[in-house]
């Protein structure tokens, strides 16, 4: 019983999965269509909020239909080459040695970048001889931009929040199996506050009920003063449509991500929401001032100052809206700067090591080298190979660094 309850009561069969009957049926039909050879769409893309049974459906279905499931996790770095090394053979051979059929699952796709991973996965799908299931936790109604390469080559299966009545029913089953007594109003509270995220409902149950046999509202009160978290897009939606500072401000505590991350989400999406130039200028300026308040709080270690940051990044942004038209965003963009850093990692490392060497030999700072010297050197590398060669030798550059200079 030391396992967390959410994994202990994880559904093993399709019947145990609460809600999303239509989605499950869609997936079943698609898998059945493989019996007559690879169908038009070789991948099924399951998307929807967390904790509603997406992964459970796939594992239960695979067990039910006698598939061997190969899971690839998003935390791996997904280049085409690595993917091929990892699963290359299994996507071309339909059966294992024992005659079992194979199925490949890519989970947690939301953590994969478009250039690094999504494209590699897309090209794998095109060659696949076995069913491939993709899962992404996405909160918006529509497609996230980065999944564009997967759009036309996969069957889209949408998951939604588990309805209250079904969450409640599932909770009652679990409580029965645990042989504990939980008051009906507590179960209702639990089912209600997690808004259809069954996994977190069970987590909440465990938080108040583990080690107890009888739970009343008194024991559950620990949960009530804590607001259920908003998924980022919900939080952003609330923020961008807030009409008062206090409404906007509430998002800081209700969002399920730290305020630094929330700040980046706001910054990324603000220009998409504020389409009037002066509104946008005001909103961006509010973020800039929020940034400064944060720095001051850090520098002085006096975190009373952080509230001014919160006011600027929520109210300052929400109330900047004056002339902007209401826009219905198809999706919110996740903060892009991180991806750019990841994408350019090799190139930046090259530049850094070259700059460091030049700085040492020319007795100037690397900052100056990057701003003043490298642009000139790049001209030389383009125009005069023999002069460039001399410089490479003098700087003791490696081949890949020389290549970088030429690019």
């Amino acid at each position, binding site marked *: 019983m030391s396992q967390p309850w959410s994994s202990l009561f994880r559904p093993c069969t399709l019947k145990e999965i609460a809600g999303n009957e239509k989605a499950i049926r869609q997936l079943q039909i698609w898998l059945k269509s493989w019996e007559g050879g690879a169908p038009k769409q070789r991948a099924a893309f399951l998307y929807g909020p967390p904790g509603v049974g997406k992964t459970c459906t796939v594992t239960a279905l695979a067990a039910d239909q006698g598939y061997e499931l190969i899971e690839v996790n998003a935390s791996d770095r997904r280049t085409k080459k690595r993917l091929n090394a990892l699963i290359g053979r299994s996507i071309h051979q339909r059966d294992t040695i024992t005659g079992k059929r194979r199925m490949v699952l890519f989970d947690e796709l939301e953590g994969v970048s478009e250039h690094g991973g999504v494209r590699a996965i897309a090209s794998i799908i095109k060659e696949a001889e076995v069913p491939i299931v993709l899962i992404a936790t996405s909160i918006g109604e529509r497609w996230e931009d980065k999944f564009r390469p997967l759009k036309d080559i996969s069957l889209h299966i949408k998951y939604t929040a588990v309805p209250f009545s079904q969450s409640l029913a599932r909770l009652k089953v679990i409580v029965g199996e645990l042989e504990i007594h939980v008051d009906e109003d507590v179960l209702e509270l639990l089912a209600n506050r997690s808004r259809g995220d069954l996994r977190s409902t069970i987590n909440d149950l465990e938080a108040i009920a583990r080690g107890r046999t009888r739970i009343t509202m008194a024991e559950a009160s620990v949960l009530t003063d804590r607001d259920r978290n908003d998924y980022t897009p919900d939080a952003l939606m609330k923020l961008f449509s807030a009409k008062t500072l206090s409404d906007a401000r509430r998002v800081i505590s209700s969002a399920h991500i730290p305020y630094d991350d929330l700040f980046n989400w706001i*910054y990324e999406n603000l*220009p*998409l929401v504020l389409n009037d*130039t*002066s509104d*946008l*200028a005001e909103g*961006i*300026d509010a*973020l*800039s001032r929020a*940034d*400064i308040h944060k*720095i*001051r709080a850090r*520098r002085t270690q006096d975190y009373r100052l952080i509230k001014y940051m919160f006011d600027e990044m929520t109210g300052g942004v929400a109330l900047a809206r004056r002339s902007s038209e209401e826009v219905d965003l198809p999706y919110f963009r996740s903060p*892009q*700067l991180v991806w*750019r*850093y990841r994408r*350019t990692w090799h*190139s*930046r490392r090259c*530049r*850094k090591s070259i*700059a460091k060497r030049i*700085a040492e*030999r*020319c*007795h*100037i*700072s*690397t*900052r100056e080298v*990057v*701003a*003043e*010297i490298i*642009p*000139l*050197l*790049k*001209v*030389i590398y383009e*125009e*005069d190979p023999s*002069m*460039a060669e001399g*410089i490479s030798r*003098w700087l003791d550059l490696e081949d890949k660094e020389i290549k970088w200079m030429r690019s």
Partner: protein
Amino acid sequence: MWTEKYRPQVLDDMVNQTDIVSRLKTFVKERSLPHLLFVGPAGIGKTTSILAMARDLYGPGYRNYILELNASDERGIDVIRDKVKNFARTAAIAGDVSFKILIMDEADSLTTAAQHALRRIMEIYTGTCRFCLIGNYSENIIDPIQSRCSIFRFRPLSEADTKEWISTIASKEGVQLLEKGLEAIYEASKGDLRKSINLLQAAAAVQGSAVDDIAVYSILGRVSPRKVRDMIDLGLKGEFVEAREVLRSLLVDEGLAAKDIIRIVYSEVLKLNIPEIWKVRLSDTIGEIDYRLIQGGTAEIQLSVLVAKLALAGEKI
């Protein structure tokens, strides 16, 4: 690179900054020197002087007795303190000289707090180590440090001296430098010899023979970050999202520091064909953002305020 190839190696090689050079020669003769503070604009011989003096003082093995640090590359005063400590801990046994020399470039970019810490370090290690601080402006160096140093003000090289240097290097390298080309190099770099020589070398690479003004301007056009101009133009057109992408590319792909970007933006904005009053307004915004950056603001967030303001300007004009 020609800047290093033609850097004067010993004080006798130095033909400019004669007053300062003769004082430095006295230090070498006396085998003793105070803490030094060299101030003046870029590319006129501050670092060259101290390196040449060190070579005269310690001989060919001089590298063992000096430590070069660049304040803008060192992370924090604690790192500096550790490096100084390790460096100064072992005494110099260079004949009759009992101290080492620590050269701190861009010392004027240190925060006031860091400078106070540096002052303490200078006091503690005075016995074994002399400090040579280098910077562009003495105003940015706190008084207690100034009062502990002999201050040498380096003057910009005269036009004639600069041109003579460049011509000499050109002829040694077999580059035919036309009068107009020389003029263009001087115009672009004024008295900054490092910049002049780098420009000459790039121009020679592009145009092996007969470097004229067109060759020089074409280099300048290619290296002045065109992306900054793209960002400004997109901003003026109100294309905030696209301009922000360019900004990200400057910060990440090009690796430019925020203060370099803002410096270029400022000079480009002054060249724009917009009503003069908007130049003043934009300058005010740039000034505000520059200050927020100095306070430690996040580069991307702060610089995008500029882009938003440019969009506003573009709409109103």
